[in-house]
Structures are given as structure tokens and as C-alpha cells.
């Protein structure tokens, strides 16, 4: 079996005991890192060492480690999910860094995503935005035959592209205003592009936008930072579509 590699790194990691404590950066030297490790495996190595030294390991969120669950969420060297485009933290590999690098790792920062501990934040605001209308109201058992609803492929493809959002929150973390427009618009678009979503179109966009404001997310000023950092490359077109949906819902009364 190939053993560990030979990269040496300096890590500056945000440590915060709980949501009410004050946090601060701590510096760690790590060595024996191989280019084949994922970024989170590098954290595993550091955590194992901290445990052996009797210290508390760094808490961070993760689950699938395949880039699909949306749980991992590190702000790395000033970029949500780090340097690779279209990539979550868990899919980022140490090949992206060089021996001797200093890497700064922080949690997502947004009023609407309070820090729970170290790099772990509370993203339940996203669930509440979905509760406000991110669904189609159909009870189990009421469905018609699936092929009785025809959907033309271009619309189906666009809906699918919007539905690829993994709810990670990188868009909020990347945005100077901590806006949740990309996330919300991805869901509004996904459902608005499908005939099944049509009946609730107006109430949906209204309620979801209202909830977004209630949660304390900021305004969108079209910086495009969200799209640039989104691991699923969700397009800004979705924000434009949501704005149109919103305007037409307001003027339709």
C-alpha cells in the first residue's frame, strides 16, 4: 500500500467552540500529505494527530464525499469550496496545492448561517425557503400516468440543470451581500419550467422570496460571485428567470 506523501502545509483554521463563543484562527503544521488525498482526507490526517495529542479535532460537515449531498462547506483561501471550478470541498484533491503552501480555512459566513462549531454552520434557513413553496402540491397516489405529461426536451434539460443544485450554500458564502438568490432561483426555475409546476407558479415565487428576506439573506447586486463558485455551476439565468416570475406574480395581483 502506498503510504503517506511528502507535502508539508501550514493550515490556518477557524476554531469556535459553539454558536455563542468567540472564534479565532489557529495555525497547524501538517506534513506527510499526499497529492492523492482529498482535502477532507487531509483534515482526517490532522484530526487523527490532534486526537493522539489529546486535543479536540476540528469539527466540519461532510457525508457523501462524492460531491452530491451538499454537506461539506469550507471556505478555502477566500473561496467557497476552494480553487477548483465546479467542485465541492470533498472532491477537491491535494493536487491543487503545492508543498509549503499556507491554506486558510473558514466556515461559510452569513448572518443567516450561524456557526455551530468550528467549520460547521446551520443552514436550516434553506429548508425553510423550500417549506415556503419549493414543491408541487401533489399527494401520494394522486398521480396520472407519467407519460401523459409531455415535456419538450430543451425545457426538461433546463429544469434538470436547475434541479442539480445541492443546497450547499456556497453561493451565499461567496456573495458579498450573502444573498440566497442563486439557490432560491434554482428551485423556482426547476419548477416553473415544468408543466406540473405551473398551477402554483405565482404563489411559489412570492412565498419563497418572502422567506428568503425573513431569513436575513442579503439583496442581489448581480456580482455573479455565486455562479463562479457554485460547485454545480448553476447559471445566473435562473436569477433572471426568478426576477421575471416575481415581477409577473406581483403585477398579476
Amino acid at each position, binding site marked *: 500500500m502506498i503510504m503517506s506523501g511528502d507535502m508539508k502545509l501550514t493550515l490556518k483554521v477557524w476554531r469556535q467552540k459553539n454558536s455563542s463563543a468567540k472564534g479565532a484562527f489557529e495555525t497547524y503544521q501538517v506534513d506527510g500529505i499526499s497529492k*492523492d488525498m482529498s482535502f477532507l*482526507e487531509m483534515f482526517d490526517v490532522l484530526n487523527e494527530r490532534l486526537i493522539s495529542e489529546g486535543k479536540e479535532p476540528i469539527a466540519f460537515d461532510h457525508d457523501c464525499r462524492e460531491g452530491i449531498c451538499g454537506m461539506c462547506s469550507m471556505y478555502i483561501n477566500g473561496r467557497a469550496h476552494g480553487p477548483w471550478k465546479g467542485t465541492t470541498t470533498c*472532491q477537491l484533491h491535494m493536487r491543487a496545492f503545492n508543498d509549503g503552501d499556507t491554506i486558510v480555512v473558514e466556515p461559510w459566513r452569513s448572518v443567516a448561517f450561524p456557526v455551530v462549531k468550528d467549520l460547521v454552520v446551520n443552514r436550516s434557513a434553506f429548508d425553510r425557503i*423550500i417549506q415556503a413553496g419549493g414543491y*408541487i402540491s401533489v399527494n*401520494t397516489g394522486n398521480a396520472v400516468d407519467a407519460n401523459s405529461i*409531455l415535456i419538450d426536451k430543451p425545457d426538461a434539460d433546463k429544469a434538470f440543470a436547475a*434541479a442539480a443544485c445541492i443546497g450547499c450554500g456556497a453561493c451565499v458564502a461567496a456573495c458579498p451581500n450573502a444573498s440566497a438568490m442563486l439557490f432560491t432561483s434554482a428551485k423556482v426555475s426547476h419548477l416553473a419550467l415544468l408543466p406540473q409546476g405551473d398551477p402554483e407558479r405565482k404563489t411559489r415565487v412570492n412565498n419563497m422570496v418572502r422567506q428568503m428576506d425573513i431569513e436575513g439573506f442579503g439583496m442581489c447586486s448581480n456580482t455573479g460571485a455565486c455562479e463562479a463558485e457554485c460547485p454545480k455551476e448553476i447559471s445566473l439565468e435562473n436569477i433572471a428567470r426568478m426576477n421575471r416570475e416575481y415581477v409577473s406574480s406581483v403585477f398579476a395581483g
Partner: protein
Amino acid sequence: MNEKWTNYKGSVKLVNPANKRKLEVIVVGTGLAGASAAASLGEMGYKVKAFCFQDSPRRAHSIAAQGGINAAKNYQNDGDSVHRLFYDTVKGGDYRAREANVHRLAEVSTSIIDQCVAQGVPLAREYGGLLSNRSFGGTQVQRTFYAAGQTGQQLLIGAYQALERQVALGNVEMFSRHEMLDVVTIEGKSRGIIARDLISGKLERHFGHAVLLCTGGYGNVFYLSTNAMGSNVTAAWKAHRKGAYFGNPCFTQIHPTCIPVSGDHQSKLTLMSESLRNDGRIWVPKMQNDPRPANQIPEEERDYYLERRYPAFGNLVPRDVASRAAKERCDAGYGVGASKMAVYLDYASAIERYGKTEANKRGLHNADKETIITLGKGVVAEKYGNLFEMYEKITGENPYEVPMRIYPAVHYTMGGLWVDYELMTTIPGLYCLGEANFSDHGANRLGASALMQGLADGYFVIPYTIGNYLADEIRTNSIPTDHPAFMEAEAAAQATIDRLMNIKGSKSVDYFHKRLGKIMWDKCGMARNEEGLKQAIAEIRQLQQEFWSDVRIPGDANGLNPELEKAGRVADFLELGELMCVDALNRNESCGGHFREESQTPDGEAERNDEDYAYVAAWEYKGNNQYDLHKEPLTFEVAKPSKRNYA
């Protein structure tokens, strides 16, 4: 049997709407099985509480499923039917599943697709606007529905949205970042759970007239698997300790196409979709320990061992067969890559073949090789681009230029809590759905059937079967959670946490988990034998003792503590691992994913023994490393057992 489910639905007891509002149901787990169950029961009017350990129900492990979901829609008019799906599933499971359950699964499969499309799940479509299908896992019909490589994600988000709608309506109360630590039983019935709020660290008592465990599979007992890091057996195991039988624990699925282990730092393994076997060719060098890179090994010195051994199915043999064949080659010294524990999955000939077709389509009849390859790469990128990219991110190698290296990895567990036709465990009022139960897949699961089963259980089975139980519970008032049974269960859970925290040993949780994984992989993995299993049992017992005297968990229990969470899970895996070996030792036959070296044909194929082992092994927990075996005989009225032959 064809009528069993229809007749059942026609005669099952019902609960009237006014009474439903008084009945409380706890759903643990919000993957496909749990989210669909919680949403449906909420819609029906039950008072539901749902739990998951992630920060949101949208993140359950189901999200990672790539390939697709089966349904007997026969949209392609290629001869598919409920009967054929039923038959394929029973046969694929090597005749170790219950016929009636499988038939019901095939029957409701079609409604699942209708339901998901109505929810707005963006399944793949053709240009005419109709749904698209693909064939999957070597079946002869195209019955797999998919959403690019993200089928699980889209289906789960559909169920999640239905669930959040019920949360908004007040029918479901959602508890994220909560981990169930025990079931509470009162007078023999399941009446609630003890859960830990992972943020505050506090234990909570929750009452329910019935409890549903939808907590997923236990592949992580092997440490390395394709499962999400948090996937665990704790909920099922705690129920087992309280009296629920565990069915066929040793039935594990090892998936043939995963990215191989690259070093000791490895934390999980990544699946490369089965669909890659449709076009890729699998080979190893004919020479042992061949040091040459793949592209310097000439064609005649390559051993396309699947095509050689199984000419009829070639690279498309079922998962268990493909996995064992890879292991056989690597063990014999023909493996490739730095670790020599890998085989090649080669796209060179597919690229050339597609390139030629594409050149012809464009009227380039004398295209040079370079043009053909470029065109071929384009076609392959369209079909498999995202998988190739993922491979490159992880390995740093470009699979368009060099063959991928793959090796089998633990992927799915067919075993789980034993349930009856109504999905009830041996504890009245305690149900088990999805991968966590043992039901429909026998000794081997077919591709694209787990998503189908999870959603079948949650949307279309439990809404009926739970009524049959709850109809008799309408006079049971909510039991206050200061009832002694709740207090005792909470105290016991607290005592376990205190005990873990107070060991203050010298080794991390992962240290023990890795050691357990190695024992399981070496001795209860792709091939098993009596001697190895006996050794494994002894080693695991030893490891249990070491764990309970030497594990170190930093921090405290009054707040978020991921090491404590892992420790609780590994403690349960250590017991489950032992039971898996006990079960594997008892089953001295080879069937599906379970290969006993003592039971094979002269040319190394698995040999099933219907005379002695046509039963479900349901294990009862007796304490102190003792388990009693109960056998549920399997009889086959329709799908008569035959030999699985893929040669």
C-alpha cells in the same frame, strides 16, 4: 400470489380521518424510504415526527445513487411486465427473497414513476417529450428510468420537497441533526425512541404509537465502502438488541466498478457507475506482475477474463460474478496499478468503435485514425463525461488516454432487520423500510432496484400496512414520556455515552473502525470460508474488548462531538460484524453475494444449496455474544429455482 397485494389492500383495516389525527408516528431516517413514508403519512393525517442525523433531510445517503430506478412500465414495448420484473428480481437475488414481497414491489413500481413525475422530478426525456429508459445491470429489457447520473438526488429531492410541504402544513415535525439511540418498548410494543440532539448533546424522549426505522444500510461495517461517511447500523442494531430479529446479515453486495484504494489515508471509495461496463472492456495482463504501463501491453498479451470466462454475458455479468472474477485475477498476481489490487476498464476500443460510426454518420469514409479517435472521444464524453471527470479529479489520470483502474468495493447490504409482509419487525409497532430491512433482494440486488424498493416501501406499502396495526391503537392515548420505560431507556443511553467518554484510552475511533473493516474485508468479504470466519469471530471479540478499554474520545458530550457520534456507531458495528460472520459461517452454501469457498463447482462458480439453505436466517439477540437462529423457509410457487448461469 398475483392477487395477494390487491386482496390485502381490499381487506386491510382502515383508520378514520378523525382518529388519524390522534395517532402519532415516528419516522427515523429521511432517505428515500423515510422521506416518502413521512410525507405520505403526513398527507394522510397522521401526526408524524421525522428524524435524521444530517443537517437537512435532503442530504441522506440516497442522494448519491447515480444509475437509475427500475419500473415495469414497458414504455419501450420490449416485452417488460410486472411478472418479468418480479421474476428477474427473484432470480437475480439467487432465490433467497420472499416471492410475495417481490411481486408487490414489481406491482407498485409503475406508480412510483407516476408519483415522481407529478412531483416534478426531472427524469430524462426523449425529443418527443416522453420519458427515456436505459438498460442497466445486464437485464434484457430497458426498464431503468434515470436523471443523468443523478437519479438518487432527483428522487430524494422530490421526496424531500413533499416532506417539507408537510412540515409547512404542520403535519410533520422535523428533527435534523438528531440521532436515534434506542427504541422504547412498553408491554412488548414499540412506543417511541430516545434521540440525541447532536448540537446540544441532550437526550430526548419521543413517543409514537408506531415507529418506522428507515435508517439505511450498514456497508460501513467494512470501514471502506461507497456509502456516505455517516451511514450506520445503530438504529437497526439497537432495535435488534431490544428484540427485533436481524435477517441474513451476511448478505453484502460488493460492486465491481469502484475507484481502487490509493493509500492508507483513504476514507471512502467512489463508485463508477455500472453503466460503464456497457461499453468498457475489462482486462489484466496475461503476465503476472507485468511492470509495463497499459498502453505498452500488446493486444495479444491482454486477458479479457470476463469475456473469456463468460462468453454469453462478457463484461455484463452480474455484480457478484464480476467482483469475484476481479479478485481472483488480482489474488493470482495479475493485478495492475501501484497496489496491484486493480484491473483495467478500458475505453480504447469503444472510442474507436464510436468514432467510426460517427465518421460514417458524417460521411467521412476514409477518416484517419486520429479523426476517428477524436470523434469517438466526443461520443464517449457525451455519454459518460461526468464520470470520466470525476475519475480524473480523484486519480489525476485522464481516462480518455489511459484505461481506468477499478476494483470491487462494498456497496449495499441486502441483509437487515427481518420484517413480515407488512414491513413490521418482530417487535409489534416497529417497522423497517428501505435498505435497512432484509426484504426484497435476497442474496444479491439488481442494479436500480434499491431506489425502487425504498420508494415502494415509503409511498405505497407502509401507508396501507400501518393502518392495519394502528386501527387497533385508536384507544391508546399518547403515553407521557416520563413513563418508566422511557426513563430507563434514556438512562441506559446516557450510561453508554458516559461509559464511552470515560474510557479515555489511547486510540482513536477510526483506529478501531479500520481494524474491524480489515477483518471483515479479508474474512467476510468477497470469499468466505469456515476457518477464516471462525478466526474473524475471535478477532472481533478481542477487538470489542480493546475498543471498550482503549478508545479515546476528546471533548465532552454536552455539544457537537463528531468523535462521540462515530464511537457509538463503531461500537454497534463491532457487534454487527460478529453476527455477520456467525451468519456467514452458518450458511455453508454460495448464493448471490455470499460465496463460501467450500461450496463451488470445479471451475470455481458459486454453488447454491436449496435443499439445506432455502431459508431466511433471522437472528435473535440473546446478549453476551449469543444469537439464536430462526429459519423462515422460502417456498417458490412461481419463480422456480434454477441455476444462475452466465457462461
